[in-house]
């Protein structure tokens, strides 16, 4: 800071920064990207370790014996499910009661804002069934949840069977210190949302549910089980929840530790970990695994039934049994033992899970990148915006070239007018608001006038509003009294750059992945755009780097990462469905990505678009 106190040196530093601004920005950008890519390199990451004492050293024995019986129960469940054509509520209630649980049901209904074409549902009515295993000599203050969705078709029957088998086995044990809630939820996330909202008596999304009759106190942890085959080859853990929230890392560690102990192959993002980190293929494997996590987290949607628990500060994960073509198979008894072990350790908890990290990325199950390691990557990108802002600020303070008629220039420049900055700001935000509100409001009108379904109407309206926003600069200037000045666009750009910096900074704190991906595309735009660059080329670049196109690329990139590449035609359809899913996530579960993009990021990008067409 002594550097800044000295006017000479300050001047020197500032002149250095303004003179070398462009090279420094480019350098920072590449440094940021390289830092991010380096995160997956194994020597730069940390090994996972169990931080929670209660789960670390305490030994538990897994003795779950009756996998075959659980499978038989699963088959019985499947038969009843087929007979009823949905959730066999009565059978479940009876079966859970026979296992000595306190059983309750909850009914719910929800009308979606527009039909969900992926899952083919519009008006959803269902019933959740849950049984509570009361811990002996515990005063109903703490609970654990094991849930299994009742999915349509032949999926997840084994999961429900295993859940009932575990309930039966757990009931005969004396060591439970927390109530255990066995939940079978219908209509996957909607049922889970109804149950959780009812449990905590909140209503954030306007769903109708009947109040719960039995509770177990504050829920400490939850596991959601998905299992669709009698034997599995590996176990996958899903961590990404609503709005990119993650459970405490100790939950992932616990899963990993038990997989190691019992000898089950375990994966994250469906990918095994490899030991050849020093080879190129090993590194790219780790990068791909991490990128999958980044993409999933950035989407802000719950990637399993566990995702909705995280809002309530309940550590939760989904475990999926996967049956591939591998030689070595694991039977359900072993899976049951694994879950038993995890529950016994969670039962040992004396405090909520809080010891380990809540912000992390995982290039493999045994390694993680903590927030302290990945934030610099984002910081390097964000600093570009600050450098540009500094540059603009300095240009205000000392105009670069004082010409012969400099006096007149300065007088003209000193009054850019609040209006010339405020008008584009307000108009772009109004466009954003219409992007947020119009698609769902005018779906009926759209369906009347065009031969499209409701869902298509919503998505196409959104795209139409988005595209219409591109015509704005011309309309803005009609509103303005005079011509835009040289100083005017500078002020606007300064405001826009700082706005973007704050916006991205806040986003990255909550959801690093989303913030980083947005920064990756928006920062170059913000850095280079002026009214003096070649218009056509810049316009193309600007459109390509706009949030909508970022989403389109992300869809293709994600498919590529999942090793399921799609043609452009399919990709486009997928893109449309992703937009509708994003909106549904917002209206059904309260995901914040859609409003963030519509109300903040898109208007911000429009400001840069405005600057490009400044006259």
């Amino acid at each position: 800071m002594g550097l800044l106190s000295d006017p000479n040196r300050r001047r020197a530093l500032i002149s250095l920064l303004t003179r070398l601004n462009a090279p420094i920005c480019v350098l920072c950008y590449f440094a940021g990207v390289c830092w991010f890519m380096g995160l997956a390199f194994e020597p730069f990451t940390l090994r996972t370790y169990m931080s929670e004492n209660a789960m670390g050293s305490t030994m538990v024995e897994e003795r779950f014996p009756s996998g075959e019986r659980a499978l038989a129960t699963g088959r019985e469940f499947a038969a009843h499910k087929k007979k009823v054509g949905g959730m066999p509520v009565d059978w479940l209630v009876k079966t859970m009661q026979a296992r000595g649980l306190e059983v309750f049901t909850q009914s719910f209904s929800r009308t979606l804002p527009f039909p969900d074409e992926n899952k083919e549902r519009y008006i959803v009515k269902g019933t959740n069934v849950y049984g509570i295993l009361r811990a002996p000599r515990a005063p109903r203050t703490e609970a654990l949840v094991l849930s299994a969705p009742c999915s349509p078709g032949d999926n997840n029957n084994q999961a429900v069977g295993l859940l009932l088998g575990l309930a039966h086995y757990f009931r005969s044990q004396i060591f439970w210190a927390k109530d255990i809630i066995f939940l079978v939820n219908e209509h996957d996330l909607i049922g889970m949302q109804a149950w959780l909202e009812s449990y905590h008596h909140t209503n954030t999304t306007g769903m109708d549910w009947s109040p719960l009759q039995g509770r177990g106190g504050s829920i400490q942890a939850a596991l959601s089980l998905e299992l669709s085959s009698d034997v599995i080859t590996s176990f996958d853990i899903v961590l990404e929840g609503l709005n990119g929230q993650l459970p405490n890392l100790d939950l992932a560690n616990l899963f990993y530790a038990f997989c190691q102990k019992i000898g089950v192959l375990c994966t994250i993002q469906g990918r095994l970990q490899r030991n050849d980190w020093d080879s190129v293929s090993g590194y790219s494997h780790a990068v791909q695994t991490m990128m999958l996590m980044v993409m999933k987290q950035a989407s802000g949607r719950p990637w399993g039934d566990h995702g909705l628990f995280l809002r309530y500060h309940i550590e939760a994960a989904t475990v999926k049994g996967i049956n591939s073509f591998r030689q070595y198979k694991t039977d359900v008894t072993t899976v049951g033992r694994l879950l038993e072990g995890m529950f016994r350790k969670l039962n040992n908890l004396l405090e909520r899970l809080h010891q380990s990290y809540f912000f992390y990325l995982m290039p493999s199950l045994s390694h993680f990148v903590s927030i302290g390691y990945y934030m610099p990557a984002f910081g390097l990108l964000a600093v570009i915006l600050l450098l540009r802002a500094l540059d603009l600020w300095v240009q205000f303070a000392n105009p670069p070239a004082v010409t012969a008629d400099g006096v007149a220039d300065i007088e003209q420049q000193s009054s850019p007018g609040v209006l010339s900055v405020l008008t584009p700001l307000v108009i772009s935000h109004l466009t954003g608001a219409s992007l947020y509100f119009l698609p769902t409001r005018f779906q009926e009108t759209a369906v009347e006038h065009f031969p499209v379904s409701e869902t298509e109407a919503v998505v196409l309206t959104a795209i139409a509003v988005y595209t219409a926003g591109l015509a704005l600069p011309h309309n803005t200037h009609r509103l303005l009294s005079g011509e835009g000045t040289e100083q005017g666009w500078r002020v606007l750009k300064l405001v826009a750059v700082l706005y973007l910096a704050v916006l991205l900074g806040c986003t990255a704190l909550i959801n690093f992945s989303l913030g980083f991906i947005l920064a990756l595309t928006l920062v170059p735009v913000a850095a280079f755009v002026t009214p003096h660059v070649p218009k056509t080329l810049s316009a193309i670049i600007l459109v390509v780097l706009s949030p909508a196109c970022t989403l389109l690329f992300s869809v293709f990139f994600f498919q590529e990462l999942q090793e399921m590449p799609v043609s452009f035609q399919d990709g486009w359809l997928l893109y449309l469905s992703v937009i509708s899913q994003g909106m549904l996530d917002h209206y059904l579960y309260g995901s914040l990505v859609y409003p963030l993009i519509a109300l903040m990021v898109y208007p911000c990008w429009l400001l840069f678009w405005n600057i490009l067409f400044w006259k």
Partner: protein
Amino acid sequence: MAAYRCLRCAWLLLVFISSWYVVVSGEETTQGDDRVSVADNPQIAADTAEQPSEERRWEATQVDKAVPDDAAAAAHKQDFPVPDSVLTPTPQFKDTFKEELVIRPLHSGDIYASFQFRTVWETDFTRGSKVSHYRLFPKSLGQVISKFSVQELHISFTQGYWRTMQWGQPYHPSPPGAELWVWFQDTVTDVDATWKELTNVLSGIFCASLNFIDSTNTVRPSASFKPLGIANGTDHRFLRYATLPREIVCTENLTPWKKLLPCGSKAGLAVLLKSEKLFHSSFHSQAVHIRPVCQDPQCKTMSLELRQTLNVVFDLHTSGQGKREWSLFKMFSRTLTEACPLAASSKIYIDITDNPQEEQFEVSPATPLLSQAVVLGDRRTFSVYDLTQQVTFGTVRSLNVLIRWKSTEGDMLRPLLHAERYVAGYGLQTGEIHTLMYNNHPFRSFPVLLLDSVPWYLRLYVHTLTVTSKGKDNKPSYIHYEPSKDRVRPHLLEMLVQLPPHSVTEITVQFERALLKWTEYTPDPNHGFYVGSSVISALVPSTVAINTNITEEQPLFSTFFPCKEESSYFVRVYTEPLLVNLPTPDFSMPYNVICLTCTVVAVGYGSLYNLLTRSFQIEEPNPGLAKRIANIIRKMRGVPPL
């Protein structure tokens, strides 16, 4: 003359003692003989076993005649026609001890065992008379009562939560953790100080953390806790009530509790109280109740009653065996061989109301004795085993009551009144406490008294208090609210609410979570903070009153209107305690936090402040040393400096 009388008294006393000794030793020898003969010859054993049993039955009838007096001393009076003047200097005979065990097979297949030990002592601590001689009454408690001028004392330690929906109402309700409520005599001047001292003393007696009771968790309920014994006034200034929901109850609390019994755990029903079994259960609750009671129907003199109760529920599923049967041995890993010799009565009751024709379960060995009682608004029938009679123990000289279930378990019960409570909302700033009270009576409404004591760190917003039943606002007819004071006292909320028939009444109140000082956090702040159970006290309409079954043998004139005298009964229901998370700093990183804060303050703030508030000017470089010396010299010479 006086000397002669004294001599006579002493002589009589000597005779009395020697005769007593002879009787006792004689009994002992016969018993010894019996044992030998049993070992030698089983046939003779059967004969000899019959003989004493006949003798016992006769004795029992004698005792029965003396029962109205309800004192062993009275029996002695009949046996030995000793003048009253002799008995007055020996007041130890003025106390009696009774023990009983009630076993109730529950619908769910679980089993509920309730022990009760009652000592009544004809003495009066209130008059300030110094009592130094104790016989059956535990001295440790007696001293506490007299020292702290306690009128009534109720203390309970409970591990687990009573599941009303599955088990029905308990005989002795108690909240999870420790509960203590005391009525002091009106002679006590500084109640708070006495209360503080008393809790510390009790903490020592019961090996419990009762010393954590202080002003922040003590309340003075205005209506919910009335004296249970005889009392002159009910000014709630002399009442103190506190709960410790965190308290864990274990063996170290059971042992001192057992030591208060006259027979300890050596004989009688207390033999069954083995901790390894009692704590292998679904619910465990032990309590001590001391209160003054009337000695006779006219209530001219007072006696002190000590009731020690122990309730335990055994779980069918965790018992490990597939068979649906219970026995004393399976429950307690002991059988009974004798009553406590000091007990005036020692009985086991088994609730067979739901099982008149033995279609649900069968009890063996069978007993001819039956008893009826109205308990919790319901007329119950009990099989009775009298342990003071030798015949109860049969030929094997031990009693192992066996209950074998025949039918499968039933549905959940619908108790007339039950309640639940939970915290709603998410996040660490605000929340809402919901209390639900169910009235399952088909056509009668009844009032309940709700007591809520909430710690100060949950700041209740009382203006958000709502009481709704059946979707309509239900205005409480009485509200007593004492606001909390930070770090001094908790919130106290008492309400009298009318519960409409067949309804759920929901009481909600919002709260804000306070930020604690860093020293006020518990060692495990991330576990959460407990809020004690709410207490719901109610007079519930009795089911006996609903009963219109007129097949029973009753006089015709009494059966027309289905109303009975005991048309309502008192019930106390405790809700679950709550576990609430407060905003918690990350205590594991004080070092990082200190470093970061210091850096930010020192470097960031200091320099920025400097930059913002000072104006900077270019200063001439410092003159050299030679120049300065030259200047000093010039100054001394009075010439302007260079």
